[in-house]
C-alpha cells in the first residue's frame, strides 16, 4: 500500500516537472524530461499493478501472503513483465470500472447536495460545488479532444458520459465550467503546434503537457480543498495512460 501512495506522489511530482519544463528558459531539456518520463513510467507501473492487486483481492481470487503484501521492486517488475498487453488492458478497464463505483457515493453526494442548495444557499454555493465537479469534467473535455488511440477515446467517453450525467443533474451551472476549459484548449494547441518545429518532436509533447497541465492544475487546486476529487482526477489520468505510455517516453 505504501508503494501505491509513494507511486502516486511521484507521478504527481513528475507531471508537475514535465509541465513546468515547458515554460522554463532555454527550451525543453530532452535529457531531464526523458529521465522524468522514465520515473513516471516506473511509478505508473507500480501504481497500476497495485491497483490490479487490490482488485483481485477484492474479487477474492488473490490470497495475499506475507511476502506479497509488501512486494519488493523485483517482484513488482516480474509481475508487470508477465502481464500481456491484453491482460493489462482488461485489468485497466476493470480498474476503471471499479474506481467510479468506489467513488460513486461521493459523486452521488455531490449531486444531492447540489440540488437542494441551489434552492437554499444561492449562487455562491452552486459555484463552489460546480467547481468541485470541474476537474473531472475538464479531464473529460481534454481527453475527448486529445489525439489518442481509439481505446483511449472509448474509455474516456465512457467515463465522461458518466460524469456528464452527474453534472447535468445538478443543473445548468456545471456546463459553464465545462465550456470554459474547452475554449482554452484549442487555442493552446494551435499556438503550440504553430510554434514548435517537428524536428524537436514536441507537438506530441505539447498535447501531452496540455493534458497533464490541466490535470495537474486540477490536481493542485483540488488537492488543497478536497483530496478526494484530486484522487479521482489522478486516477482518471492514470487509467488512460496506457496508450500514452510510449508517448511519454517520446520526450
Amino acid at each position, binding site marked *: 500500500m505504501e508503494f501505491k501512495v*509513494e507511486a502516486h506522489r511521484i507521478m504527481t511530482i513528475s507531471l508537475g516537472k514535465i509541465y513546468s519544463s515547458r515554460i522554463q528558459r532555454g527550451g525543453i531539456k530532452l535529457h531531464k524530461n526523458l529521465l522524468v518520463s522514465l520515473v513516471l513510467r516506473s511509478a505508473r507501473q507500480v501504481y497500476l499493478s497495485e491497483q490490479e492487486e487490490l482488485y483481485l483481492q477484492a474479487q477474492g481470487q488473490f490470497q495475499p501472503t506475507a511476502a506479497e503484501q509488501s512486494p519488493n521492486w523485483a517482484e513488482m517488475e516480474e509481475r508487470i513483465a508477465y502481464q500481456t498487453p491484453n491482460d493489462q488492458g482488461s485489468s485497466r478497464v476493470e480498474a476503471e470500472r471499479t474506481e467510479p463505483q468506489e467513488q460513486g457515493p461521493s459523486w452521488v453526494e455531490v449531486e444531492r447536495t447540489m440540488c437542494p442548495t441551489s434552492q437554499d444557499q444561492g449562487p455562491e454555493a452552486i459555484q463552489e460545488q460546480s467547481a468541485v465537479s470541474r476537474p473531472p469534467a475538464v479531464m473529460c473535455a481534454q481527453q475527448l479532444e486529445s489525439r489518442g488511440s481509439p481505446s483511449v477515446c472509448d474509455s474516456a467517453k465512457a467515463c465522461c458520459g458518466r460524469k456528464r450525467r452527474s453534472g447535468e443533474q445538478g443543473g445548468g451551472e456545471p456546463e459553464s465550467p465545462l465550456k470554459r476549459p474547452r475554449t482554452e484548449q484549442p487555442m493552446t494547441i494551435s499556438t503550440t503546434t504553430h510554434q514548435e518545429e517537428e524536428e524537436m518532436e514536441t507537438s506530441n509533447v505539447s498535447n501531452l503537457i496540455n493534458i497533464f497541465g490541466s490535470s495537474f492544475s486540477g490536481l493542485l487546486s483540488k488537492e488543497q480543498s478536497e483530496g478526494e476529487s484530486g484522487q479521482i482526477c489522478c486516477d482518471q489520468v492514470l487509467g488512460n495512460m496506457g496508450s500514452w505510455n510510449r508517448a511519454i517516453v517520446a520526450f
Partner: protein
Amino acid sequence: MAGPGGGGGGGGNDLQWCFSQVKGAVDEDVAEADIISTVEFNYSGDLLATGDKGGRVVIFQREQEVGNEFEFSGTKKLIYFCQSKSRPHHGGGEYNVYSTFQSHEPEFDYLKSLEIEEKINKIRWLPQQNAAHFLLSTNDKTIKLWKISERDKRAEGYNLKEEDGRFRDPVRITTLRVPVLKPMDLMVEASPRRIFANAHTYHINSISVNSDYETYLSSDDLRINLWHLEITDRSFNIVDVKPANMEELTEVITAAECHPHQCNVFAYSSSKGTIRLCDMRAGALCDKHSKFFEEPEDPSSRSFFSEIISSISDVKFSHNGRYMMTRDYLSVKVWDVNMETRPVETYQVHEYLRSKLCSLYENDCIFDKFECCWNGLDSAIMTGSYNNFFRMFDRNTKRDITLEASRESSKPRAILKPRKVCTGGKRKKDEISVDSLDFNKKILHTAWHPKENIIAVAATNHLYIFQDKVN
C-alpha cells in the same frame, strides 16, 4: 610542493590543502548571471578560465614570481613555448584577472519560439602555438573560437594622423617620418575568430579538442559532430542516436571526449550509465562502437530513481589515456580502457544521499550534473558535492578526504580542515548531519592544475583556489 611532475604523492591525505584565493562578489545576494558554469585550466596551468550563466568568460593568469629564469631558444616561436612551460613558481603565484569578455549573448530562435540561453556550458583551451591564446566556448547551440592576445606596444608618429587620432591636413605635411613602436600598458584583447553555429538541434553538453589540434568534437543530447577549427560552415556528424521514431527514445548522450593521444578515438557516455568508445577510422558514422562499457546493475538497490542516478554526468580520460573516469549521481568510477565489463575502481561520493533520493527528486537536485577531474599524475581524482563540499580520492592509498569551500576557511594559507558527514547515530563534534546539508550550495565544477597541486573549485558565484601546503 611546486614544480614539474605534480609535486607530492597526489591528492588524498598525503597533502594538506590551503586556501589561496577566492574570486567573486562579496555581497550575499547571488545574481543568477554570476553563477559559474564551467572552469578550465589551460595546458600549462598558467591560465584559468571560467564561464558563467551570463555568458561571460573570465580568464585569470598566474602572476610570475620576480626573478624567474626561463630558457631562451633561438626562434621567437620557441621562446613563447618555453615561457609557458618552464616558469617556476615558488609556492606563490596568485591568479589575477587577465581578461574578461562577453562570449555569448541570449538569442531567440524565431522559428521555434525558444530562447537560447547564453550560459557557457563548456570552455576548452587549445594548446598554445604562438603568442596568443585560443579557447573554445560554447552555449546550448553555438561554439565560438576566441583569440586572446596581448598588446603592449603602440605605434607612434604616424604621418597622416595626430596622436589623438584626428587626421592631419595633407597639405600641412612637410616631412615624413617612420612610426616607432613605443611600450604601453598591457592590454589584453579577446576577439572571436570563428563561430560554429547551426549544427545542433539539441542542447550542446560537451566540446573536446582533438589531439591533432586541428579538429574538435561537439556533442548534444542525440548527436556528435566533428569540426575542423578552420571551417565553420560545415561539420561531420559522427554519432547519431536519434531513433526514427522519437517515441522509442530511451537513451541520450550526456558527455563526450576525445582520447588524449589517439586522434581517431573518442568516448561518449549515456543517460543509461554506459560508455562507448569509438574509432573514427572504422567508418564515417560511428554508430557502432568499438568498445562498450557497462557495469551490471545491482538488483537489490533498485528504486524508482535507479535510472536517474545511473545517468553519467561527466566522462574524462586520464592524462595517460589508459583510464576513463565517469561521474554519476552518487559515485565516481574509474574504467580501464581495455576492460569493458566493469570499472576497476568505484568511489562513493555521498552514499548517504541514497535514502533521500525522493526528496532530491522533488527539489530537482537529483538532476545536478557533477563534473570530475584527474590530477596531473592521474594518481588522484576530485569531484564536488553539496554544502560546498568537494571530495578527493587518492587512487594509490585509497584514502579520501572531504573539504569545504567556504568563507570561514578563507584566511590566506589557512589549512583546510577535513569535513565529515554524519550518516546516523550520534553526531560527533564538527560533523554535520545529512539533514543540515545545504543543497543549494553545490560544487558542480572543479579543475586541477595539469602539473601542480593547485585546484580551482566553483562554488555558485565564487571561485576558490586552493594549493597544497609547501613543506
